[in-house]
Structures are given as C-alpha cells and as structure tokens.
C-alpha cells in the first residue's frame, strides 16, 4: 500500500511538473534542440531545477541504509560504456528530434492531447517491443 502511494505520488507530481514546465509542448522541446535556429533554452531550466533537487536527494540517499517504504535500494550498478549505450542514445535523440517528444511528456499528454499522444505512445511501445525481440543480438 505504501509503495503504491509512493509510486502514484511520484508519477503524479512528475506529470504536473511536466505540464507546468512547458515540456509537454513538442514545439518547445524541438525549440531546445533547434540550436542553430530559433533556440528556446527553457528545457535547460527544467533540467537545472530537476538536477538541483536530485543532487540533494543523492546526498541523502548515501546516508540511508534502506529506502522509506521498500526493503532495499534497487539502483543500476553497471558502469559499462558500450556501443549499446551510445547507439541507443543516438537513436533516441533522432526520434526526440523528429517528434519533439520523449517518453514522459508523451505519456502525460495522453490526458491532454489524446490522439497525437496515443499515436506516439503506441509507436513507442512497438519500438520497445521490436527491441525486445532483437535484444539478444546486441
């Protein structure tokens, strides 16, 4: 029950923050990526605010033995820098530039701009499914 509340609260505050930040507007996100055109730096402010809070959170995390409502921390431990990380990030950037959407704002937009958001999210899940099928080749 406590875990459910934490997950729902985190997701809801995240979605509210996305809506307030302007990051649910693909045109604004594309504006950030349009460095050589009419550049819109708003995304940098969003990232700066999020990083400031999370930098403090990681300092608190170091002093905790267990999280508040779960038995242990389940955090990524890999430090591997490989072609999969770089190749995947290059592809993600291409898609981000094409549509002006990344996964968080796309899912949040299901509540506000259902048709375009649903087309993007369905395609995104299909892309995830295709990767799942070919994953063993990487």
């Amino acid at each position, binding site marked *: 029950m406590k875990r459910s509340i934490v997950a729902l609260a985190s997701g809801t505050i995240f979605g509210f923050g996305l809506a307030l930040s302007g990051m649910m507007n693909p045109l604004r996100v594309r504006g950030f990526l349009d460095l050589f055109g009419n550049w819109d730096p708003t995304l940098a402010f969003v990232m700066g605010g999020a990083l400031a809070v999370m930098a403090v959170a990681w300092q608190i995390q170091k002093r905790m033995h267990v999280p508040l409502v779960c038995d242990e*921390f389940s955090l990524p431990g890999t430090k591997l820098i490989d072609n999969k990380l770089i190749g995947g990030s290059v592809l993600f950037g291409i898609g981000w530039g094409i549509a002006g959407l990344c996964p968080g704002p796309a899912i949040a*937009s299901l*509540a506000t701009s259902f048709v375009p958001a649903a087309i993007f999210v369905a395609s995104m899940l299909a892309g995830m499914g295709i990767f799942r099928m070919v994953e063993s080749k990487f």
Partner: protein
Amino acid sequence: MTLPGFPGAAPVEGLVGGLLIGLAAAIMLLGAGRIAGVSGMAARAVGLSKGGAPWPMAALFVGGLALGAAVYTTFVGPVEAAFPPTAGWLIAGGLVVGFGTRMGSGCTSGHGVCGMSRLSPRSMLATATFIVSGMVTVAIINALGWGWS
C-alpha cells in the same frame, strides 16, 4: 518573466516545473529506492521488460504521469502544445524513441535527471549523446525544409 534575448522562453515555469520533476524523482529514490526512469517504467508496465520495478509500482507511476497532467489542466489551466502535423512524424519518432531508449537503457528522466545528478559517467555520456543527436536531427530536418511549427 522572459529571458533577455529569448522572448519565447519560459524560464520561471521551466525552473519550477523542473523542481517538481526533481521532487518526484527524489520521492521515488528515497521512498521506493528506485530510479524514476519513464522509459524503463513504461516498458515494465506493459510487460516489455524482464527486470525492474514491481508491476503495480511501474503501472501507478506511469498512470500518475497522465493523472498529474490532468490535475494541472483541471486546476491550473490548459497545456499549450503543438504536435507534428502528420501521423507519420509521430509514428517514426515513437518507433525510434521506443527502440532507442530500451537499447540505451534510459531517456531524459532516467539518464538525464536521475543519472546525471548521481554523476554517473554512463548517464552523462548518454544524455550528451541524445541531446547532440536530437540537435543534429532537427538541423537536418530544417535544412531539408521539413520543419513543422
């Protein structure tokens, strides 16, 4: 408030929204001990990921994203959004974003917000890579005269 030189930017809304996104990620980290990475949670919620968060947690987090946006439109105001004009852009972008975020193990939230603030070299490299890749993509699209606005 506007930013000198960038009349279209929304620095205050961006910063406050960013602080809330950071708070959300901090609640997930300190509460549940997990990374608030949207691509991973979404894959988990629809059964496209073996590991990761327990299913109810992933589903509630992902559902919360849409709920939070709905709360905003109900109590604050409409969300301004201009989407690509044709389904082709959305489908192409979505497919590549889905494939790429799984292949690269994260997106703007997991690598960008959570990993960079942890000073993870892996996440910093991933974030720099997808930002540069996105900028090159937009530059190419604009150079071809295919840009939408």
